[in-house]
């Protein structure tokens, strides 16, 4: 009752009920965190088994032939990888200048109230579902932007690349803006102190200082571009024939997966005679998983290096 009254002799062992509850809560939370490991393991396991089935059943030499045509038993990895490279390459060509330009402007030039308006708008763009951008690429970019300038098919890899590029602009912008804002003020002040102009300071001082963060942003964006599915599935069409130019339809890795997935007759009949089309889905999935994982780890490494600098 009284607020004072020190308790001697000492029993500091505490309330066992509270301690038990503490331990229970802790282990519950640990299980939640450890679940992520189980998810990763489940991804790898669910991919690896079927992918192995594919590897053993298909002659590796055919990987480099022309055409990804699962129904005819033709699995040209070259075709879908080349198409993926084209789409993500175009996407990077679109997103790098737009994203970096936006990042430099927001970080170095924009006044506070301008920033307060422009940044959320960029975030809205980031929130647009990819299926919507796919529709936009197919029904607006192809007929209104590409076809007047370039003889391309209704479905073409160029539109898909531009669509994916638009999708990853906000990612490039926000991650590299963070990197540039992390550059110490002192560096900018030193540059201004030497009488440097604003453009010189932002492009020749701040930008190089933030370069590893910016590189990390671009790697991350590339990884996202490679894994993007819906824009490609809608805008690039379903042709499995190899095309060296982005003017025609072509399946990318993700496009091929989506195509196999919606041809649901093959996906469900895992045990049926036609086993390969289904297994190839997992093989491509595994490739995609490994490629994006490598890119993500790489970008993480680059970021860690730049964090150490300041």
């Amino acid at each position: 009752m009284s607020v004072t009254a020190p308790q001697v002799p000492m029993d500091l062992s505490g309330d066992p009920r509270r301690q038990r509850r503490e331990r229970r809560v802790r282990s519950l939370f640990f299980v939640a965190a450890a679940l992520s490991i189980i998810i990763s393991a489940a991804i790898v396991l669910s991919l690896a088994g079927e992918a192995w089935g594919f590897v053993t059943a298909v002659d590796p030499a055919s990987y480099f032939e022309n055409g990804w045509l699962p129904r005819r038993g033709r699995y040209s990895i070259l075709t879908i990888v080349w198409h993926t490279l084209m789409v993500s390459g175009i996407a990077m060509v679109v997103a790098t200048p737009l994203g970096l330009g936006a990042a430099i402007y927001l970080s170095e030039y924009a006044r506070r109230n301008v920033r307060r308006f422009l940044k959320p708008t960029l975030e809205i763009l980031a929130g647009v579902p990819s299926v919507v951008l796919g529709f936009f690429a197919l029904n607006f970019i192809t007929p209104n932007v590409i076809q007047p300038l370039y003889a391309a098919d209704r479905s073409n890899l160029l539109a898909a690349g531009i669509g994916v590029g638009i999708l990853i602009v906000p990612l490039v912008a926000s991650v590299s803006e963070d990197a540039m804002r992390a550059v110490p003020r002192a560096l900018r002040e030193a540059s201004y102190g030497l009488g440097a102009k604003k453009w010189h300071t932002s492009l020749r001082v701040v930008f190089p200082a933030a370069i590893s963060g910016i590189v990390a942003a671009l790697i991350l964006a590339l990884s996202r571009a490679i894994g993007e599915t819906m824009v490609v599935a809608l805008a690039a069409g379903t042709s499995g024939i190899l095309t060296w130019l982005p003017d025609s339809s072509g399946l990318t890795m993700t496009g091929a997966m989506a195509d196999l997935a919606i041809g649901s007759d093959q996906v469900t009949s895992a045990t049926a005679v036609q086993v390969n089309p289904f297994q190839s889905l997992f093989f491509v999935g595994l490739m995609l998983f490994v490629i994006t994982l490598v890119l993500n780890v790489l970008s993480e490494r680059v970021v860690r290096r730049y964090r150490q600098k300041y």
Partner: protein
Amino acid sequence: MTQEPVTEEHRTVNADPTPSATDAAADKLRDVVADRETEGPTGNSTIFGLRGLTVYYADFRAVKEVTADIRENEITALIGPSGCGKSTVLRCFNRMNDLIETARVDGSLTYHGVDLYGKNVDPVEVRRRIGMVFQKPNPFPKSIYENVVYGPKIGGMKGNLDDIVEESLRKAVLWDEVKDKLDESGLALSGGQQQRLCIARAIATSPDVLLMDEPCSSLDPIATLRIEELMLELKQDYTIVIVTHNMQQAARVSDRTAFFTVDVSDDGQRTGKLVEFDVTNRLFTSPSKTETEDYITGRFG
């Protein structure tokens, strides 16, 4: 401040003829302790026994081999330059160092004779009995009432919570200022009031020790004075251990003072150590170690 008659002993101490004794800073400190006893209170039993207490953060040895006895119902001040490990030692007393994962303690630290780092000791129970006031006032972002009542409530304390709130706030000399606005946020108070609220919050769990980690460092001089007066009042009921940067403060309020400093080894490792632990008056007027003297005369730190 306690007004003790000036004793004979410290007059002789004041007449110490060494050159440093004439230093202005040291003189000032002497003026402050002039009215304090040289012998310190007697008859108070040991509450914390430190024997070779050494604290590591991972591989870094923050403070080494501290041996001292801290007594009940006294104010003990821990002083010294930055990085000397005084806060580290303070945070051992209520096992707050446990929150820093890499912290590790060697040697022994007893509380009423019980090993604080013993196997069956629950740090939660330790912290209920040994309250802490932090450098920056850190009230919960809740009402004044909830701030004070939180400790007793989770500790399962019996009794009328309203009474506990009032008594704690009275002891922290805050009651008259806040009794009409107990529902208002603790963050709406001034810095000095917030710190007294934090003291009230610490008192509310009926601890028998209050640890204060530079409780006035973020306060203005008037608020500091009020907290110092409050400490002297609380001394009747609690043992107080205070870490302070401010030697004047240590001289004004503490009964005993421990002076820590930093040892720099050949390979640049900085380790805190206890240099001298004595009755405050004696430590400031006739330190037995030159390191202490250098520090209080302002030649170091």
